[in-house]
């Protein structure tokens, strides 16, 4: 090979306690190329990159930079090797300006913010970033913050840029801008490593792709010589035949009607824009969309956790046929109405469960108010805990173990088990299989199907389109807080949904930006 590898990893291993995050991973990246690291959630991509950027130190293996062995024990060492990482969770100080964040931790002689601002502006002009160097971080949008992160590593003269899922939080327009910038940097001779699990982006942007699966290095291919299906196979091991059962229910009747709800976040930005749909009993309604398009707010609105600007959430009581508006009620009031609404939130240990409490006490979260008197009744929750541990095969020493000590899959079983035990009439689940192993995932799918057969209106927010298409009856597509489509999962295709997730959003953007768009 004529070009020397800018960075080369040899047999890197990293363990966290008993968990092997990376095992014998080898990797090379050359100057002037974009390398994608592809892998599912939990395949060890981020851990690997953290070792290059000095956050973790490998247990075994070597890292070579420009052919020489490098020891990267701290982020500072990484800077010295001209490595810059853009983390998924931005590492910025909110009350500082863009420039202050960019020069943070640097030692470049005299401290002169004016000079630094000028230099920042130059970098922005060179690669085509739009950024006000004097703007404070807490007033910025996500995409602006990302820009600050990228400019920060460039300012430090980074040659090797690592981006951890940079597109997860961006709109399609912003993604396009980001990719244009990345290509310019490639032309400039920089090494760009981009971590992602989105195949279309891999195909679009990268020169080569390295695939990881469950901490193991699978292989590297040239993008021009591969296809999405080959990459998928490398990523998941075998062709995905999901083989999820889809039952057909009788008695599909409207259960929940959402009418024109609008909702704003704390900064006053609209996160739900005129959302309307109907969820039926005996049906799984899927919700698809790019992460952060308003899925969380939508579910929380129904659960009574969001203050709505306007609109109504009507619940049709299956016994009386009466309609109740849930939009103006708190979770407690909803429960008092006799509405059995279960909700498996995305943030399991931060919202659905309390990590430091044991399984029994976590069972009580939904039911502790039951019974008269001032005191807790622990008998029923204990029985329920034992029941769930048995039925869902939760791996735990006993029911008195704090849930934070359980593995991800078992935590989710405890949570889903509790929510189903309330024999709900509406069951909402946000990313219920995220980070779970195959067996646990299938158990969750089966539980959702069982609920559907029982005549529950199930709402399932997912990220994997294959799963959504196989499991759901109808799929609602949401983009930037708007409903952009509603398809029949039995007939729809992945491409169709993918298009809906992005297309209308772009249109919405062009509405806002007027005639500015020309390419």
């Amino acid at each position, binding site marked *: 090979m004529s070009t020397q590898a800018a960075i080369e990893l040899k047999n890197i291993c990293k363990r966290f306690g008993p968990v092997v995050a990376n095992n014998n991973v080898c990797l090379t990246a050359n100057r002037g190329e974009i390398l994608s690291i592809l892998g599912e959630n939990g395949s060890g991509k981020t851990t690997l990159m953290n070792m290059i950027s000095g956050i973790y130190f490998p247990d075994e293996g070597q890292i070579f930079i420009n052919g020489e062995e490098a020891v990267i024990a701290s982020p500072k060492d990484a800077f010295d090797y001209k490595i810059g990482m853009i983390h998924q969770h931005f590492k*910025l100080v909110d*009350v500082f300006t863009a420039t202050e*964040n960019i*020069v943070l*931790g640097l030692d470049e002689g005299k*401290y002169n913010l004016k000079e630094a601002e000028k230099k920042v502006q130059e970098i922005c002009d060179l690669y085509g970033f739009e950024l006000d160097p004097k703007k404070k971080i807490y007033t910025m949008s996500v995409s602006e913050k990302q820009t600050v992160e990228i400019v920060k590593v460039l300012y430090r003269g980074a040659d090797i840029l690592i981006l951890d899922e940079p597109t997860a939080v961006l709109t399609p327009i912003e993604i396009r801008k980001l990719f244009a910038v990345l290509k310019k940097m490639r032309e400039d001779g920089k090494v760009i490593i981009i971590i992602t699990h989105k195949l279309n982006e891999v195909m679009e942007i990268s020169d080569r792709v390295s695939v990881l699966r469950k901490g193991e290095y699978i292989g590297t291919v040239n993008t021009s010589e591969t296809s999405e299906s080959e990459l998928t196979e490398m990523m998941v091991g075998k062709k995905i035949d999901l083989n999820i059962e889809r039952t057909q229910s009788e008695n599909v009747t409207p259960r929940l009607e959402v009418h024109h709800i609008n909702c704003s976040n704390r900064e006053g930005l609209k996160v739900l824009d005129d959302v309307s749909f109907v969820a039926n009993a005996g049906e799984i309604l899927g919700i698809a969309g790019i992460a952060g398009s308003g899925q969380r707010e939508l579910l929380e609105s129904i659960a009574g956790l969001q203050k709505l600007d306007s609109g109504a959430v009507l619940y049709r009581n299956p016994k009386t046929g009466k309609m109740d508006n849930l939009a103006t009620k708190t979770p407690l009031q909803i429960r008092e109405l006799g509405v059995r609404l279960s909700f498996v939130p995305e943030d399991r240990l931060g919202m659905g469960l309390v990590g430091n409490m044991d399984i029994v006490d976590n069972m009580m979260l939904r039911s502790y108010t039951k019974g008269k008197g001032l005191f807790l009744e622990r008998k029923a929750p204990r029985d329920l805990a034992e029941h769930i541990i048995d039925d869902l095969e939760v791996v735990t020493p006993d029911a008195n173990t704090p849930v934070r000590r359980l593995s991800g899959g078992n935590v989710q079983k405890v949570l889903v088990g509790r929510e189903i035990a309330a024999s709900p009439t509406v069951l909402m689940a946000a990313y219920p299989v995220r980070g779970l192993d195959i067996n646990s995932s299938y158990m969750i799918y089966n539980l959702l199907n069982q609920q559907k057969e029982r005549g529950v209106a199930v709402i399932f927010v997912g990220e994997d389109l294959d799963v959504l298409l196989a499991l759901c009856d109808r799929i609602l597509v949401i983009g930037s807080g708007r409903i952009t489509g509603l398809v029949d999962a039995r007939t729809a295709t992945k491409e169709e949904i993918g298009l809906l997730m992005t297309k209308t959003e772009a249109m919405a953007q062009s509405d806002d930006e007027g005639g500015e768009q020309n390419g």
Partner: protein
Amino acid sequence: MISAFIRTAIPLGVPLLYGSTGEIITEKSGHLNLGIPGIMYVGSIGGVIGAFLYENACGNVLENMNPFLTIFIPLICSLLGSILMGLIYSFLTVTLRANQNVTGLALTTFGIGIGNFFGGSLSKLVNSDMPNIILTKTSSLYRTSLPFADKLGWFGEIFLSHDFLTYFSVIVALVAAFVLNRTRVGLNLRAVGENPATADAAGINVTRYKYISTCIGSAIAGLGGLQYVMAYANGVWSNNAFGDRGWMAIALVIFALWKPNMAILGSFLFGALCNVNNYLTGLGTATQELFKMLPYVVTLVVLIITSMRKKREHQPPQSLGLPYFREER
């Protein structure tokens, strides 16, 4: 009358200024050091011990005492004492990640104990024939005011009649403000207090910043104790005389919105508020006690208003009170 009021208010503000400047520097690193009241006692007694031993060594004769050493020995002893306290605090809260509130309160108990214990037992411990600690000779040097103080009328009275530690307190606060806002070190320090994970990722040695800022902050706060006993109290130590000035210094940090230059203004305002009751003798002792509440009430009002307005620049450092552990994210 007015110039006399201002002249007497200023010394009341000086220990507060030292204390709050020190606490601001510490809090900027994310550590709420409730040990400051104790540290100020230690700074005070440190100076007293140094001066006491030196005066005794010179046979309590002013002529035998070297002016430079008379100033320097207590100063060094004071700094050593308070820095040692700062080290204990940072070892526990930074390295051992102990709860900051509990550590700080324990340190305050400990520090006030040290101050009063040595204040009350020093003569006994060194078998001195001086029953009480009255360091008038050292104090007279510490209280040297600027020339022309008594010749320039009200101007001299207000601005020139003070001891050197008073002027130094303002300089320290100004320097602290400059360092925090205009230098790289200050930027890094503020980042550590706002978001240590970010600072760490930016290659800043979070632990070192926390240690150094806590120790420097403690040293500065300790000087407040020294100034009090040597200049304000004429070198006379009496137990608990320093009172709650340490807590008022912590209150002042809130009042100053974590800005040292605001602390200059605030400390002299607090000094004036504390001084009001001395000038309102007609109200009787009881009502005077009510007036002593003023600084705390004013602080509460500021605390409430800033939390209501939620202006980001006026909030405490974001990670104030939280321990930082790199692998815990």
